[in-house]
């Protein structure tokens, strides 16, 4: 009898569902009124009643966190960056029960041992601590904010829940906070674009990096600098040229990490865990090696971009996989070229990888040297999967799809059963909603209109950023430029500056990639999406000394002696012209310098690894910074970093 109202609602909504319709706008629920000093507020719990607790160990952040209150239903907390909300969804009941607005775009969530929820707000420089209501149908209450380096992304707890770890993507750091007081204990600078973080049993934090095929290892028990683990591999396939096999492949798409505990007897030995880093192994080619396609070496069984899951031995801090093996003569289809999230199912030693671009969850053998070589099955999920969590007890995986605004619930032991999809109360920014089609195209892999070898725009321009790679092209080596926040007012486009409009530029790029071409409407959709891409959030750092440096750097930048602003001028920091810098009749477009600090390597051919190297090069065809006193060069570099 008590369930009757809901049953009625189901019947009613089903009966009326013949035409698409939208419900009345869901009331936005902000935890507290704006204007409070959240940075000083206490993060301590306010409520007295027990909260739903995380399932299993669950010490790693994700866009989906699973909790359960006693014997109650399985709940999923979902970080919906588009809606700037945290959803609470009853997985068992297949419905959303509440939504909590937060002050920005939440990227990952982590449930503390007492049930409070920490969220990274990626378009800001803070994390938020939320307290769920005892009744999941009520929104969460915001308890506090804590400032961290800009663009907080990944979350993890150390063993025994002593420390809370936060990676900052644009801030390039790992922040270690006291998990009880939320006081910052340590900020560890890391190489560019750190994303996911997990902590092993020996209290070492492992951090993935979006670019560069590397992982950082930070010993939380020591004050030592981070170690870098090299995840680059060689390819091995009988049809490859020797020089291509000799090349060490870089990598990208390092969004996710997971941990697996070795089962059985192996767990008794020293190495009990392995860190799994799904990514994409990349061979961008070199001028001295043959090119059969626009970028990179010819297809020989291991394409220039190939999914690869690096398996790291945490005790030795080294990658176990050294080779990327060719398994096929022909080009494989539906490859996972945009792995976004990962989780492990301990019972079956499965690595679950959410793959954007093909909208699928892949179940891989987590004990393989390269789990992508041992794919067990794949399941179609709602568009744009960006988070995955596993409930070991019920054998279910829950996948959050950002673009689809939905959760897919997959019964892992029922191979033939299609997942259930739960639509979320999705409230994207209207501007984003308008370019939804362009956004889908941007992330779509395996589309023959876009590329011959399965690549998506986001393969090189991840979320509109850059892959830090210099590609071999017929025009010479070309560094991938960052797009986000750099499109408006910077035409012409491309390093040669040969395309007056984004339409033209995209059209030319897909032709270069061997794609069949997009329709004018699709080009408009993609252009529209590119124009809406926001750059990284502003950096807040430094005191008076830095301000002084930046000021001095600005003076140098605009001075006629240095000549920087002659080309890098205006709000977009470009004169929108091409220049033959080296007198080789090889003119290049003046790139925007917006967000330049996080886009290494530099120069159109990627010849400089750092800004400092660029400014100190006596042979540089740009400006005269090498002749400056060192302090002035430091100031100029600091000004560039502030742009």
């Amino acid at each position, binding site marked *: 009898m008590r369930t009757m109202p809901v049953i009625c609602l189901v019947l009613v909504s089903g009966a009326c569902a013949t035409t698409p319709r939208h419900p009345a706008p869901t009331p936005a629920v902000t935890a507290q009124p704006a204007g409070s000093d959240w940075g000083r507020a206490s993060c301590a719990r306010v409520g007295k009643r027990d909260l739903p607790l995380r399932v299993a160990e669950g010490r790693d952040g994700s866009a989906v966190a699973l909790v359960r209150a006693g014997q109650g239903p399985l709940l999923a907390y979902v970080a919906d960056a588009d809606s700037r909300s945290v959803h609470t969804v009853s997985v068992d009941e297949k419905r959303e029960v509440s939504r909590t607005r937060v002050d920005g775009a939440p990227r990952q969530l982590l449930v503390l041992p007492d049930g409070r929820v920490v969220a990274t707000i990626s378009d800001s420089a803070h994390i938020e601590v939320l307290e769920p209501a005892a009744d999941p149908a009520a929104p969460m209450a915001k308890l506090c904010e804590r400032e961290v380096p800009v663009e907080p992304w990944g979350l993890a707890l150390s063993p025994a829940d002593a420390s809370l770890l936060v990676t900052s993507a644009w801030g390039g750091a790992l922040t270690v906070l006291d998990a009880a007081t939320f006081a910052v204990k340590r900020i560890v600078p890391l190489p560019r674009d750190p994303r996911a973080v997990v902590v092993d049993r020996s209290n070492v934090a492992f951090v993935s990096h979006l670019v560069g095929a590397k992982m950082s290892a930070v010993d939380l028990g020591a004050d030592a600098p981070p170690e870098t683990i090299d995840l680059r591999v060689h390819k091995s396939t009988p049809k490859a040229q020797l020089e291509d096999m000799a090349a060490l492949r870089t990598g990208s798409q390092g969004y996710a990490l997971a941990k697996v505990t070795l089962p059985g007897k192996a767990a008794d030995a020293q190495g009990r865990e392995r860190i799994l880093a799904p990514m994409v192994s990349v061979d961008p080619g070199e001028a001295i090696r043959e090119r059969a396609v626009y970028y990179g070496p010819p297809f020989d069984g291991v394409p220039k971009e190939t999914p690869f899951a690096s398996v790291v*031995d945490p005790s030795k801090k080294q990658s176990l996989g050294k080779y990327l093996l060719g398994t096929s003569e022909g080009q494989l289809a539906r490859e996972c070229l945009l792995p976004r999230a990962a989780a492990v199912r301990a019972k079956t030693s499965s690595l679950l990888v959410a793959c954007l671009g093909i909208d699928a969850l892949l179940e891989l053998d987590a004990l393989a040297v390269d789990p992508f070589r041992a794919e067990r099955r794949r399941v179609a999920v709602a568009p744009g999967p960006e988070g995955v969590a596993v409930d070991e007890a019920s054998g279910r995986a829950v996948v959050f799809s950002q673009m689809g605004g939905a959760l897919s619930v997959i019964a892992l032991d029922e191979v033939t059963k299609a997942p259930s*999809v739960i639509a979320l109360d999705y409230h994207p920014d209207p501007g984003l909603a308008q370019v939804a089609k362009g956004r889908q195209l941007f992330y779509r892999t395996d589309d023959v209109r876009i590329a011959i070898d399965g690549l998506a725009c986001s393969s090189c321009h991840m979320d509109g950023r850059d892959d830090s790679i210099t590609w071999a092209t017929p025009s010479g080596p070309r560094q991938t430029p960052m797009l986000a926040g750099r499109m408006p007012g910077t035409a012409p486009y491309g390093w040669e500056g040969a395309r007056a409009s984004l339409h033209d530029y995209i059209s030319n790029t897909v032709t270069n990639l061997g794609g069949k071409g997009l329709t004018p409407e699709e080009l408009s959709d993609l252009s529209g999406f590119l124009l809406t891409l926001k750059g990284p959030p502003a950096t807040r750092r430094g005191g008076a000394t830095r301000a002084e440096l930046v000021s001095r750097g600005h003076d140098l930048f605009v001075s006629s002696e240095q000549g920087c602003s002659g080309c890098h001028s205006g709000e977009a920091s470009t004169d929108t012209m091409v220049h033959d810098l080296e007198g080789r009749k090889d003119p290049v477009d003046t790139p925007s310098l917006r967000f330049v600090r996080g886009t290494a390597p530099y120069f159109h051919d990627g010849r400089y690894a750092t800004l400092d190297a660029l400014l100190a090069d006596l042979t540089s065809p740009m400006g005269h910074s090498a002749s400056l006193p060192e302090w002035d060069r430091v100031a100029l570099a600091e000004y560039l970093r502030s742009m």
Partner: protein
Amino acid sequence: VTRLRLGRSAVRTWSVAWIFAALAVACGGSRRAGPVQVARAHFLPSSRSAPAVVTAAAKVAQAPSTPAEDPPGAAGVTPLEGDLAGGEPRPSAVKAVRFDVDMLPVATWGRASPRSGYSITGTASRYRVVIRGPWFAEIVIRQPVSSFDIFTGGTFGAGDPPRCGPRPLGAPKYPTYWSGISARGWTDAALNVELGRGEFDVGTCVGVPVASLSARAAAIVPGFVYGLRVLIPPTPIDPGQEQLIVFLPRGALVSAGGDPHAPLQTANTGSFTRLTLPTDPGTSGSASVRLSPAALGLWTALRKTGRPVWAFQDAFKTDNDLLLGVDVVSEGERGKAGARTGSVFVSLPKNAYPLAYERLLSAVSSAAN
């Protein structure tokens, strides 16, 4: 769908009002905010392999007193249709066989048996290799500018054969290596193997052993995949090492790691496939091969008849062949061994002919259990 966790009295009190409000909202009636919101089911997945859509009705959170700025609700996107590249995705793994590396037999190099070795007769275009003993063998001769690899038991050769015969200033001797399997004593559980290394005398066209190793490899997948560990003793300049040698049917598209300058470290295939994977602490090894039905037939023939099969033809296209992978991971570091895991993965492409692999798949299933 079960009931929200509301107080019982509240449910009872609101039941009637709730139903009417739901009727109004769900059928596109009043859009005024009420105590009830209906969750949408707007996601429509692609037709193929489509997840089920759950249409659910739910009461969403109570409206706050001062709602913040909230964009209007919108439907999430539906999957893009069409224009996908042709071709097949990676084949799904049928089974993974975990094996205990430490349980495999161990063999050590020793002084060569005078009865081992081989000889080559014939010309550069037609030659014949005769190996002493009951072996189907893989032979590698490292010549100054090229390597010559040949397998007995078929027409499997690669590289330039040495030009044998006396030289006025004395014939050179080249390093040579071989590995062989024997049809004698071949059971589902074990396989006799011999590894040898020595010198190839160009003058006499004979491979003379210096060291050899005979052992019985144990089945990893009974009847199809066998392995043994080989210890290479330390020397003053080399700390020694341990390797896992795996024997299996002739593969195509063999990919493996290993040092190409160490002849028996790279994988090789002919009438059978020999893989060498490192098992020292802190190392890993992996290999993948495609196995055709014809290659399984060759394997069966070798075992049953003990005679070579001279006219073997590889499949024109291997992408429909069964994919077999071997992985070994040895954690820890030298002198401080950690966990060691071994796996054999078998994947069947969608267009493979499953009946042709029935026995192998059955063996894999039984080994996996």
